[in-house]
């Protein structure tokens, strides 16, 4: 019976004490405690020597850097490059750390650490001073003659306001440079373009592709391009895999057509998430991983996304074989390769 009553009282008492006082006492400065180096001359001497040593090390570090620059050029071998970098780096570190640590050491241990109080004056100036200041501004304005010449003021303000355009217009104008989005929608794959190995450019025979293989493929016509080769390659690269036809669940071809050839399927290597080259192929699971964000595609099942941030399957390149047994494209990809972009859906 008494316990709850007591605790209730304590609560109300502590609640009352929580009220802040109207005014705090100024606690003043901490009592000044002398450091060891202030009272013991031996310690003072020792710290002086340490600071001298650190600064001397810094001087030696600078000398080492300059010496190494001339005496230890990077040279042609990995060993000489390592040595040159090592001496330059360590010398620079010693030179800067010597100054920094030595300076701090001196300030912390030897320089006077007595606190001084400097009272702050009132922030607001006296009325008289303020009036004088305003009058000076007015007089100055009058003196410059600008107050009477509105046209010059207007022209000046306009000039200043327009000036940023000289920086912004070229800057923004250069962004993108090329606004032709049609380029995103097509690659150089055409009906009959042979599939060739990347980077050697050998055409690929269907009979050479064995189960479990992975081939990194470029269009053979890439060799004939004279400019924009890299741009076109970046869009057209393909990964070619042969699966046991029993493992191949489906490809992306519409009903009644087939885009694969005897278990050989070809998919765009450009990730539909942000366009990294997807090429980590796990032979046993038929999974294809993107190294950037771990999107995972199932090659056995039309490259559908099984994990990760990608939202669309990798586009499939329709392939077949020509009369000589080489793998050729049936045409371009049926949809734009790579990540989404504005107007992707419009044809």
């Amino acid at each position, binding site marked *: 019976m008494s316990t709850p009553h007591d605790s209730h009282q304590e609560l109300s008492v502590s609640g009352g004490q929580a009220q802040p006082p109207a005014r705090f006492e100024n606690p003043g400065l901490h009592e000044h405690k002398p450091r060891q180096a202030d009272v013991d001359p031996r310690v003072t001497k020792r710290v002086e020597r340490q600071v001298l040593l650190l600064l001397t090390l810094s001087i030696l570090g600078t000398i080492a850097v300059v010496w190494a620059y001339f005496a230890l050029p990077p040279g042609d071998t*990995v060993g000489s490059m390592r040595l040159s970098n090592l001496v330059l*780096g360590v010398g620079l570190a010693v030179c800067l750390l010597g100054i920094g640590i030595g300076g701090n050491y001196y300030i912390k241990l030897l320089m006077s650490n007595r606190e001084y109080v400097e009272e702050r004056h009132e922030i607001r100036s006296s009325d008289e001073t303020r009036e004088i200041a305003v009058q000076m501004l007015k007089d100055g304005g009058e003196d410059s003659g600008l107050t009477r010449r509105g046209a010059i003021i207007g022209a000046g303000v306009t000039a200043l306001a327009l000036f940023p355009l000289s920086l912004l217009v070229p800057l923004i104008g250069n962004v993108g440079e090329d606004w032709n989005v049609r380029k995103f929608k097509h690659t150089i794959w055409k009906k009959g373009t042979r599939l060739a*190995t990347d980077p*050697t450019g050998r055409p690929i025979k269907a009979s050479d592709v064995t189960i479990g*293989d992975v*081939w990194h493929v470029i269009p053979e016509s890439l060799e004939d391009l004279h400019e924009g080769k890299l741009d076109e390659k970046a869009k057209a690269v393909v990964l070619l895999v042969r699966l046991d036809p029993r493992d191949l669940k489906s490809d992306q071809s519409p009903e009644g057509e087939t885009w694969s050839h005897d278990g050989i399927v070809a998919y765009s290597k450009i990730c539909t998430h942000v366009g990294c080259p997807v090429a980590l192929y796990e032979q046993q699971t038929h999974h294809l991983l993107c190294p950037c964000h771990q999107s995972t595609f199932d090659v056995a099942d039309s490259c559908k996304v099984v994990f990760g941030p990608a939202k669309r399957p990798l586009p499939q390149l329709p392939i077949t074989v020509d009369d000589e047994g080489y793998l050729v494209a049936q045409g371009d990809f049926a949809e734009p390769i790579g990540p989404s972009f504005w107007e992707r859906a419009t044809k």
Partner: protein
Amino acid sequence: MKALAARRHDRRAPALLLLLALLLVGAVYAVVAPSSAQAATKTATADDIAAGEKLFQANCSTCHGPSAAGTDSAPSLIGVGAAAVDFQVGTGRMPMQMSGPQAQAKPVQFTDEQIAQLAAYVASLGAGPSIPTSEMVDPALGDSASGMALFRTNCAMCHNAIGAGGALSQGKFAPNLWGTTPTHLYEAMLTGPQSMPVFNDANLTPEEKRDIIAFIDEQGNGSPGGLDLGSLGPVSEGLWAWVVGLGLLLGLSVWIGAKSS
């Protein structure tokens, strides 16, 4: 000659003759014997195959089946060839120590001779890739510049730009390649162990495989820029910058701000 004939009954003569015979055999062997890789492919005798079968029955048949045709837990070995056996057993991946995401390299369980016998037995089951000769894998004969271009396209996405290795899905990983022997590198490309796809001789010609081996061999010289932190890219570099670098800066700031005694 007479002096020699007179001494033939010397009691030291048999020992001397034996020594001479041994030296002769040794010298003939050194001249005639092919390199070990060739020995494995060329001199597979019926005895080797029989010995290999015994080893197989004792060590491998539990998982791969008594006729090497595979079971639910392990694939068929018919047609994988001597190269696959030399790689899997020669790097210690087989026999597997425990089940897991992938078989890991570990100390080799068999002698070279036993590996050659196992390889001969498995090769006798069906035609498959054979072990490359030492000339086919000699890094000195390869063109490392061409190897770099091929490595970048075909290998770098899993094994990292300079072969330091990298992660795959669900605990699997592509191993570091610097410590792998040239022969095993060649065999791995040829046979596609575990998650790794196959790169057959039409895809990467034997010369191109040797170029890739030459490129990997070049990576053993160390990095010119100092500590490479495992060459793993942003993971180890970020760990270093954020934990060690930032930690040092914080420590120094605390030291600068602390009152001295």
